């Protein structure tokens, strides 16, 4: 009778899911080591200018005027609209780096006319960028460890390992996507990645919570059946939350402006992957480690002084 309670047989596909995930993770790692990440200014250092023209900008004229001033290595491209352009320069040693931005703006104003509008100038020294990478990596690692500890404490280590595996899976795939498509990886994308961690963990904990509860409630189910049942019970919640989150991320993607584009892309992808991983990765890993009903029964808490007579 209990078997009919198992509902959707999610775990039947865990083999396929595992293979797909493993392949994707390997592909991501390969892409990360071959293509690397297309680090933005925040990490590489250098100078970036966003300037606005009154009419569609003539990129070639911008390039040649920059070249004549000795900025031949500048990357010039449109940004957002035809009137806005983005100019990027690698860190250089021959000129005082922090003055580059103003110099270029002057050049453009001389070549075109005074109406060239400065929208954004960013300059990051090369060392600062290195520190950002270090700091960002550190932040992510610390977050992972703290979350692992919390779940291990609140749940059980097998589920904690499953949850963190799901997290690592999501982060690796998102990084892999950025590397594969060579999307620019800047500080906002890093923030998005950390948000993916937040979202993914939220999702996974809900599933873990239900697995624990199901184990305790239905003594006769096998671990596999238990997981299936827990996943089925949480499925509509998982989907509803993902849908609302994806809805707002889509508005951010389309309406949030170019500065937030990378952020929205990373999160959109991360949320989709996170939803999938909370269903397949966390529970598969926990099952592989042999999670069982006994592991998840509430510990017998011996109340302090329970065996003593109450004080009068």
């Amino acid at each position, binding site marked *: 009778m209990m078997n009919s309670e198992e509902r959707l047989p999610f775990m039947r596909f865990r083999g396929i899911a595992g293979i797909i995930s493993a392949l994707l993770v390997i592909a991501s790692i390969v892409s990360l080591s071959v293509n690397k990440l297309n680090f933005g200014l925040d990490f590489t250092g250098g100078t970036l200018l966003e300037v606005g023209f009154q009419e569609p900008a003539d990129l070639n004229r911008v390039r040649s005027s920059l070249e004549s001033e000795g900025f031949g290595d500048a990357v010039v491209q449109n940004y957002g609209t035809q009137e806005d352009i983005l100019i990027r320069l690698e860190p250089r040693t021959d000129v005082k780096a922090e003055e580059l931005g103003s110099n270029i703006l002057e050049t453009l104003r001389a070549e075109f006319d005074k109406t060239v509008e400065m929208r954004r100038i960013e300059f990051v020294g090369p060392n600062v960028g290195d520190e950002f990478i270090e700091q960002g990596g550190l932040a992510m690692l610390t977050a992972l460890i703290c979350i692992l500890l919390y779940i291990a404490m*609140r749940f059980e280590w097998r589920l904690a390992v499953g949850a963190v595996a799901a997290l690592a899976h999501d982060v690796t795939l998102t990084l892999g996507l950025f590397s594969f498509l060579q999307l620019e990886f800047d500080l906002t994308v890093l923030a998005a990645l950390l948000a993916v961690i937040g979202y993914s963990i939220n999702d996974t904990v809900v599933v873990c919570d239900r697995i624990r509860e199901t184990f305790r409630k239905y003594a006769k189910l096998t671990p596999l059946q238990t997981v299936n049942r827990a996943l089925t019970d949480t499925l509509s919640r998982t989907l509803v939350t993902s849908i609302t989150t994806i809805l707002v*991320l889509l508005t951010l993607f389309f309406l949030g402006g170019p500065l937030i584009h990378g952020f929205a892309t990373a999160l959109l992808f991360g949320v989709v992957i996170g939803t999938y991983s909370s269903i397949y990765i966390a529970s598969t890993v926990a099952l592989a480690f042999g999670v069982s009903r006994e592991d998840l029964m509430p510990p017998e808490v011996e109340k302090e002084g329970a065996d003593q007579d109450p004080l009068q």
Partner: protein
Amino acid sequence: MLNKYPLWKNLLVTFVVLVAALYALPNIYGEDPAVQISADRNATIDASTMDRVRNALDSVDIEPKSVSLENEQLLVRLNSDNEQLKARETILDSLGDNYIVALNLAPATPEWLKSLGAQPMKLGLDLRGGVHFLMEIDMGEAMSKIIDGMKDTVRAELREERIRYSAVRVDGTAVEIELRNDEAFQEAAQYLDNRYQGYVLAENEETRTLRLEMTEQKIAETRDYAVDQNITIMRNRVNELGVAEPVIQRQGSNRIVVELPGVQDTARAKEILGATATLEFRMVDSENDVRDAMNGRVPFGSELLPMRDGPQQLLKEDVILTGDHIVNAGVGYDEYNRPQVNITLDGVGGNKMSLATKDNVGKPMATVFIEYEATDERDEEGNLQFTKSAEVINVATIQSRLGSNFRITGVGAQEAQNLALLLRAGALIAPIQIVEERTVGPSLGQQNIDSGTQAIFWGFVLVLAFMVVYYKKFGLVANAALATNLILIIGVMSMIPGATLTLPGMAGIVLTVGMAVDANVLIFERIREEIKAKRSPQQAIHHGYDSALSTIADANVTTLIAALILFAIGNGPIKGFAITLAIGIITSMFTAIVGTRAIVNSVWGGKRLSKLSI
């Protein structure tokens, strides 16, 4: 009876929401373009200043919205943006140099709200325009300045005590003293032992050398001091620039963040903030021949330095006085209408100057202009490398004993201006370099606000629609919670003094809107399950809330951990994002668990229900 909240719980929810709404309210009033006037050290602001400002504005037909005196500052609110620049010019002209006149945006919060301490959210530079600098201090130079000063002190004291030494020199973070004979060695060892706090004395009898080594603690203190001193000076310089609401903060062990909202002229800002010029006053070595020195025979204790528009000069290495003691500096003109810089020293500086010039009347003294320039290169330890260039700008014969007030000549007019400004704002103890700069134009800032608000609005609408379709009446409850949540986030953001709204922060809010429904979804799904399990509606509601509680707590605590770590470790955009995320998690838990329960209880609670609209 099931599903009834006690009165106090309902009151608590109402109270929290009302307070948050009250503090969120200032955000819809917007801001007035304004001009902010504060007094420099030689001026005061009072009713008469107010009249002068009013009259000046009157003469150019600008009708200010209001003129008010707040915290010793005069705030002139204007009716439109395009009056702002003109108003500033006019006021600056009529008040003169002793006032700092800055452009500002003043919140148009009504008085009654202001009296409650309610203020709109602070907007980050990416939303309001302005410039952000990250500056790095040359710690090597800071340390060597301190230890050089120590060397001079030790030398002077030994001389005073008539202890005969053959050399006093600096070695890393230590001062080494070589004594002439054993007797002097004993005497010096006794004299110097425990004399200076933060230094330990090591004796080497064989070489008759004493070593005063800085302790680790002293080194750390010195580094801190260097940063603090630089921050103070940055603050002075920012004041000279006349910027409203600047942020000047320490970051890490040797960096300073300076944020100047609304500043567009970054070139001038950089020139003033980044300048590391200082002055030194030294005696000219007139006992030795300059030509000998130029041929390579520089006498011990002297140094050959170039002079602006003149021959090289031979100067004593000992510095009489450095720029740190200058308290005021202004530009003046001498009888031939040549620019000069009038300098006022502090008490210690005045004494030093007076002592040094007492016995040297009739001898030449040189003013050395020192400038540090970053080379963009670093040593193995990652410390910035600077080149120091020293130039004699003036040599004058000391006519009489000098005190706290004197002047230097031999500088150009523009240079005199800049020099005076820099000296007034203080000499940096160590040179700095700008290692990061982010400038956001005002139009981009506005565009960021617009697109951010739009994204929040539409995201919000979509989620609201989805929830109603999916959960029907309970969806409406969730929507009420969502709206309340948004108000709570804005209210809390406005209340916390350190919280700043940035573009990633707005993204954080958008994300929270999406995720905030999660707690409700968890609860509602449980209720649906309970109904499917044939419980009565009241039982279903009760159990639904109960069983979802621990899941919600676990899920959110883990996310909160992530947010807090982001806040602690990250900086800039990451921090802005972490703040809104953390606040959003807490408020959404409150609205989803307590808030919706209050509504559900008052709508459905305590009644006999046959079915639920969920």
